[in-house]
C-alpha cells in the first residue's frame, strides 16, 4: 500500500488542530466569564459568585492546560509536516506568531499561576487583575493567530520572488482583507461557547433540583449573554460571508452545494446533498424552495453561482465544505431560537421552571464547540487546494518526511490525545456531579489595594467542602 505523504500530513495537522481548537475556544470564553464573575463578586460580595468562580475555575484550568500543550505542538507542526510552507510563509506569519508569544502567551502564563493558585496569596484586587490579564491574554492570542491564518486565506502585503517572500507592508499583512471580519466572528464563537456551557450546566442542576442559587445565576447569565451574542454572531457571519464571496469565491460556491455556473431561479437552500465531485454534479439533493435565493441573493428569484465557476483543479471538496457549513449555520439558527425562547420565558417568569427548555439547554451545552469546529472546517477545507490562497498549494508545501513517519506519529497523536480528552471529560463530569462547593464564611473582599499587595491567608482557611447539599437560596 503506497501512502501519500501529503494526505497524511494534512490528516495529522487537521487532527491536531481540530483537537486543539476545542480548548482555546473554551478558554477564551471561560476566561472572560470568570473575569465577569469575579467582578460581580468584588462588587456585590455575594458568596454565590465566588462559588461560581471556583467551580468554573477548575474546569477552565484543565482546559487551559490541554490547550497550551496541544498548541505548542502546532507551532512546531508547521515545520514538521509542512516545511516548504514554513520556509515560504515564515517571513510573513512568523513575526505575527512571535508577537503572539510575546504579548499573549507570556501574559497568560505569567498571571495564570496567580489566578489558579494565588487566591490565598494575594489580595482580591490583585487576583482580579490576574484574572483579567489572563482573559486579555487569550483575546490577544486569538487576534494574532487569526491574523496569521487570515493572511493564509487572503494574503496581502508581500512580494514573491523566486519562491521567497518579502514583506512589503506589515500593515497589509496584519490587517489583511479578511482579518477584521474573522476575528470578531471567532471571539464571539468563543464567548457563545462559554455561554452555552455555563447555561447548560446550570440547567442540568435545575433539572436535578440541586444547587438552585448557583444554577439560576449561571443559567440566567449564560442565556443573557448567549442571546445577545448569537444575534451579533449571525450578523457578523453574514458580513464575513460577503467578504469571503469576494476573496475566495470557490469556498462559498462549494459551501452552498450548487454545481451549475448559474443555478436555477428561484434557488432552493440545500440541506442535504450527495455530491459527485468527479462528475461535477449532485447525485441527490434536498432543500427548501426559494430560501436559497432569499438568503444568498436577498431576492426572490436570484441565481446562485455554483462550483463549476472554478476550474476543476482549483476546486475544494464540496462535501466537506457544504456539510461543515450546514452544521455551523444550523447550530447558529438553533442558538438563535434558544435565545428568543429565553427572552420569552423571562418575560413570562418561567425561565427556571420550563423543563422542556432546560433539557434543550442541556443538549446545547457543547453546541458552541461543535459550531466552532464546523466553521473552521469550512475555513480550512474551503481554502483548498491552496495553503496560501493563490500562492502556494498544499501539495507543494509538505516536508521531506517519509509517509511511514507521518503515519506512525499520527497514530501516536491520536492515542495520546484520546487519553487527554478522556481524562478531561471524566474529571469535568466528576466536578459537575460533585457540584459547587461551599464557600468559607470568611471569604469576603477586603477591597483595599494596600492589602492586595500583602500576601495573606484567609481567616480559618477551611478546605472547600465538595458536597451535594443544595445551596440555601
Amino acid at each position, binding site marked *: 500500500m503506497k501512502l501519500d505523504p501529503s494526505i497524511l500530513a494534512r490528516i495529522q495537522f487537521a487532527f491536531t488542530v481540530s483537537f486543539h481548537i476545542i480548548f482555546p475556544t473554551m478558554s477564551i470564553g471561560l476566561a472572560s466569564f470568570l473575569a465577569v464573575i469575579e467582578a460581580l463578586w468584588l462588587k456585590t460580595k455575594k458568596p454565590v459568585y465566588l462559588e461560581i468562580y471556583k467551580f468554573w475555575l477548575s474546569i477552565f484550568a484543565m482546559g487551559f492546560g490541554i490547550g497550551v500543550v496541544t498548541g505548542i505542538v502546532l507551532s512546531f507542526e508547521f*515545520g514538521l509536516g509542512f516545511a516548504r510552507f514554513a520556509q515560504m510563509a515564515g517571513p*510573513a506569519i*512568523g513575526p505575527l506568531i512571535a508577537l503572539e508569544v510575546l504579548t499573549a502567551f507570556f501574559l497568560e502564563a505569567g498571571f495564570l499561576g496567580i489566578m489558579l493558585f494565588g487566591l490565598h496569596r494575594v489580595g482580591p484586587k490583585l487576583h482580579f487583575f490576574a484574572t483579567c490579564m489572563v482573559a486579555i491574554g487569550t483575546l490577544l492570542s486569538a487576534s494574532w493567530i487569526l491574523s496569521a491564518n487570515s493572511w493564509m486565506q487572503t494574503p496581502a502585503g508581500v512580494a514573491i520572488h523566486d519562491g521567497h517572500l518579502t514583506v512589503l507592508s506589515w500593515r497589509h499583512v496584519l490587517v489583511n482583507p479578511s482579518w477584521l471580519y474573522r476575528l470578531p466572528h471567532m471571539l464571539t464563537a468563543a464567548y457563545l461557547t462559554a455561554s452555552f456551557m455555563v447555561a447548560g450546566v446550570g440547567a442540568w442542576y435545575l433539572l436535578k433540583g440541586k444547587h438552585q442559587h448557583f444554577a439560576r445565576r449561571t443559567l440566567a447569565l449564560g442565556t443573557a449573554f448567549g442571546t445577545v451574542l448569537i444575534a451579533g454572531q449571525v450578523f457578523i457571519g453574514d458580513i464575513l460571508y460577503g467578504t469571503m464571496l469576494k476573496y475566495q469565491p470557490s469556498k462559498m460556491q462549494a459551501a452552498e452545494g450548487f454545481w451549475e455556473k448559474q443555478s436555477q431561479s428561484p434557488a432552493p437552500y440545500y440541506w442535504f446533498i450527495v455530491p459527485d465531485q468527479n462528475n461535477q454534479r449532485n447525485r441527490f439533493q434536498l432543500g427548501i424552495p426559494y430560501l436559497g435565493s432569499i438568503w444568498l441573493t436577498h431576492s426572490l428569484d436570484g441565481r446562485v453561482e455554483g462550483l463549476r465557476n472554478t476550474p476543476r483543479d482549483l476546486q475544494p471538496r464540496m462535501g466537506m465544505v457544504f456539510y461543515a457549513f450546514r452544521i455551523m449555520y444550523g447550530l447558529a439558527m438553533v442558538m438563535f431560537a434558544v435565545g428568543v425562547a429565553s427572552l420569552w420565558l423571562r418575560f413570562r417568569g418561567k425561565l427556571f421552571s420550563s423543563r422542556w427548555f432546560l433539557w434543550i439547554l442541556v443538549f446545547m451545552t457543547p453546541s458552541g464547540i461543535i459550531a466552532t469546529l464546523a466553521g473552521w472546517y469550512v475555513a480550512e477545507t474551503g481554502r483548498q487546494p491552496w495553503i496560501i490562497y493563490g500562492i502556494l498549494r498544499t501539495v507543494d508545501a509538505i516536508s521531506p*518526511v517519509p509517509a511511514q513517519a507521518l503515519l506512525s506519529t499520527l497514530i501516536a497523536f491520536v492515542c495520546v490525545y484520546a487519553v487527554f480528552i478522556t481524562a478531561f471529560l471524566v474529571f469535568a463530569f466528576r466536578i459537575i456531579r460533585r457540584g459547587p462547593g461551599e464557600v468559607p464564611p470568611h471569604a469576603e473582599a477586603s477591597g483595599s489595594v494596600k492589602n492586595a499587595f500583602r500576601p495573606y491567608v484567609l481567616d480559618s482557611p477551611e478546605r472547600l467542602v465538595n458536597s451535594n447539599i443544595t445551596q440555601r437560596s
Partner: protein
Amino acid sequence: MDLPLVSACFLALALTLYVILDGFDLGVGILLLFQPATASRDQMVDSITPTWDGNETWIIMAGVTLLAAFPVAYSILLPAFYLPIILMLLALGFRGVSFEFRVQSKQHRRKWDVAFAVGSLVAAFMQGLVLGGLMQGMKVQNQHFAGSVLDVVHPLPIISALALPFGYAVLGGGWLKLKSNLSLQTFANRSIRVSAPFFAILFGIACIYAVKIQPTIHSKWASHGITLACLVGLFVIASGMLTTMTEKTRPAVPFLLGLFLFVVGISGIALIAFPDIVPFGVTLWEAASSSTSQTLVLVGAAFVTPIVLTYSAFAYWIFRGKTPEQGWEA
C-alpha cells in the same frame, strides 16, 4: 546593524531561558520517579506548579523566532528532528496535563505522577537527542533537509540524550533545595550529588565523541582551543562542587551552580556552532529572512521582553519562599 546576528542572539536567549527554567521543571519531574512518599511528591509538584507554564513558553518563543527570522533553518531542522521533536511534544503534553489532572483524583494520583515523571524524562531525553543530532551535523541539499529521520539514532545523539536528564535533575534538585522544607532537603541533596557527576561524565564523553566524528568541531577546537578549554574547566569545577556539596551548603548555591553549568555548556555549544545555524553547512545569513521580518520580531522583542521578564519575576516573587506543605489551596 547585522540583523541576523541580533536575531540569533535573541534566539539563543530564548533557548537558554527555556533550558534553565523548564530545566528545573523537568528535573523535578524526573526526580518524582525516585520519591516514594506521596506527600513529598505533592510538595515537589507544588513547587513548580505556579510557574511552569511561563517557563515552557520560552521553547515556543525559540521555535517561532526560528520560523520568523531563519525560516530556511526552521524548514531544515524540524523535518530533520521530526521523530524526537514529536515525541518531545507528546511527552511535554503528558507532563503539562498531569499538573491539572493529578489533583483531580486521589486514587489515580500515582498514575498521573508516573505520567508526569515519564513525560519529563522523555522530553529531556528527546531534547538531548536533538542536541546531539545538531552536533553530529545533517545532510542538506538546496536548503532542504536531505537526510533520514532516523539519523538521530546514532551514538552521539544517544549519549547526549542520556546526559541531559541528569543535567535537568541537577537543576531540579537545586530548585527543591531552595523551595522545600526539611523533609525534602535530604532527597534534594542526594539528587544533586548523584546527578552531577553522571551529567559531567556523559556530557564529557559526548564532547569527545563529537570531536572525533565531526571534523568541523575538531577544527573549532584547533582554532578556539583555549576558550573551549576554559569552558571545560569551569564546567568540571562546577560539577565537582555539586558532587561534593553537603547539607551545610547554602540553599541557593547548588541551584546557581546548576544554572552556571548550563550557561557554560550552552556557551560552548554556541561557540562551536557559530556562524552556522544549521550545523554544519548553513550560516545565519544564508538562513535568514528579509530584514522587514527580522526587524518586526526584534522591535517587538525589545519592547516586550523586559515587560515579560518583569511580570514573570513578579509571579515568582508572589510564590516565593518555601512551598507550603499543605499545598496552594489551603
